[in-house]
Structures are given as C-alpha cells and as structure tokens.
C-alpha cells in the first residue's frame, strides 16, 4: 500500500511540474484584465461564440490554480485538470452578467464545485459492490464473479431467518396459554402439520359446541396479540 501512495504522489508531482513549466513557457494565454473580461462577457451575452472561446482559454490557468487545493485528494493530476475544465466550460456557458459577481469568481466556484462533486461521487461508489464484480479466476482460468459464489438469493435467506425467529416467538407464547386454547389454535391454524381445520371439525373433535370453539379461539388470539405487544423487540 505505501508503494501505491508513493507512486500516486510521484505521478501527481510529475504532472504538476509539467504543467507549471507549460504555463511558465506561456503556452496558455495570460488571464484577461478586468476591462477585457467586461468586453468579452458583453460579447458572450450577445451570443458571440468567439468570445466564449476566448473566455474559456484565458481562464485555463484558473483551473490549475484551483486544483492546487485538491493535491492531497488522491486523484490523478490529469483527471483533476480535466474535471476543472468541465467546471470552467459550465461556468462560461451559464454565466449571467446581470448578477454583480465577476466571471472569474463565478468560474472559480464552478470549478471547485465540479471537483467536489466528483470526489463525493467517487466516495459514494467506493462502498458499492456489484454482483458482477470479478473476485478471481477458477482452476481452469475462468473468471469468477461475486454472484457465482452466492448459493441463495440474499433476500430469501433473510426471509427464512425472520420466519424461523417468528415461529420460535410464537411457540414461546403459545406455551403460556391454557391447554384448551393451545389445542384450538394448533388445530385451527395447522401449526404442527400444516392442516387447518374448521371450527366445526374442532368442536366435534373436542366434544364442545362450534360457538364455544369460536370464543376460545378469539380469547387465545387476543392473549397472543397482547403478549407479542408486551415482548416486542425482545
């Protein structure tokens, strides 16, 4: 890891030195004076394409100035200048001279904002893992993706676990009911064999009336509801 950092820092410094020597050699034109800026902004507002080109070119040095603030961000130098250039183009294309801000001030904000948005976007994506990400190769040299090693759909696993936990809770509370209430609920909802029986069937089996079964069932369900509510979150 330290080797990677050293390489990244060396690459950044090398790029920066190249660029500074480039600017020192006057390869990029000097920034506009305030009067020139006013003149070209006026032309830009009239829809002059040439003025737009001049304003972009004469503010390229501003991009370099802004990206110096992001030296420690771990980003490649050439990526940063390019992102800064996108910010600059957006600034020139959306500048409104009606507001009292100078173009250079507005462009600086746009360039900085573009870089910050890029850094945020990268940070967000870093935590994400695609099911189709490669995690290595098998003995035959075929690529193995993350999805290949998942035996079961993760949602199904979660549902199964929750279902088991719910059943455990239910049996814990059913044990606190009276034997008669327990029998009625087990038969009515098929809790042991999955076969749900009618109140009439249960009444015949227990030798009591159907309406009595109904009352026992209602009371048992109410008790269970109360117990679930009391022990919620446990």
């Amino acid at each position: 890891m330290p080797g990677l950092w050293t390489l990244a820092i060396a690459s950044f410094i090398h790029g920066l030195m190249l660029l500074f020597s480039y600017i020192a050699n006057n390869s990029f034109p000097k920034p506009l004076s305030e009067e020139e800026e006013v003149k070209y902004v006026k032309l830009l507002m009239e829809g002059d394409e040439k003025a737009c080109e001049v304003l972009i070119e004469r503010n390229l040095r501003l991009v370099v100035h802004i990206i110096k603030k992001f030296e420690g961000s771990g980003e490649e130098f050439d990526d940063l200048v390019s992102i800064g250039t996108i910010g600059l183009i957006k600034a020139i294309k959306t500048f409104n001279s009606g507001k009292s801000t100078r173009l250079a001030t507005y462009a600086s904000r746009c360039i900085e904002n573009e870089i910050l948005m890029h850094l945020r976007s990268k940070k967000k994506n870093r935590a994400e893992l695609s099911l189709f990400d490669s995690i290595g190769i098998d003995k035959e040299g075929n690529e193995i993706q993350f999805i290949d090693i998942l035996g079961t759909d993760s949602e199904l696993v979660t549902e199964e676990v929750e279902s088991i936990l719910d059943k455990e809770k239910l049996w814990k509370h059913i044990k606190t009911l009276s034997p008669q209430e327990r029998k009625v609920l087990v038969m009515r909802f098929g809790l042991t064999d999955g076969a749900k029986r009618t109140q009439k069937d249960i009444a015949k089996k227990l030798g009591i009336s159907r309406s009595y079964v109904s009352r026992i069932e209602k009371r048992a369900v109410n008790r269970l509801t109360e117990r679930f509510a009391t022990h919620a979150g446990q």
Partner: protein
Amino acid sequence: MAKAISCMVCGNSVPVPRGLLIHGFLLCRACEDRIKNISPGDPDYGFYMNGLKKIWCSRGA
C-alpha cells in the same frame, strides 16, 4: 467553405464554426451541450473527462 476537423472528445468531423475551438482543439456542439449538463457519477462522465485531457497534454500544440 469551413475546414472540417475532428472533435477532441467524440472524434466526429465537424466544420470548424460548429463548436468551440479551445487551444486549437475543437469541441463539437453536441459534446459541448452534453458537458454543460453532465454530472460526476454519470456513466459517460469519464468519456468527456478523458476527451478534454487533450487540451492539457498538447505541450507542442
């Protein structure tokens, strides 16, 4: 008749007046419009970012 040169981003040949000339490199109108509205995180962002690097890598330009 305007001379046609390639866009530094998409590589399409475009007559010079149809786009922006930045430091000798053409940015066609279509790419210019896309750049105006693109946000970091967009799947195409890297394409435009890499295309614009030509402006900065042209020491001899």
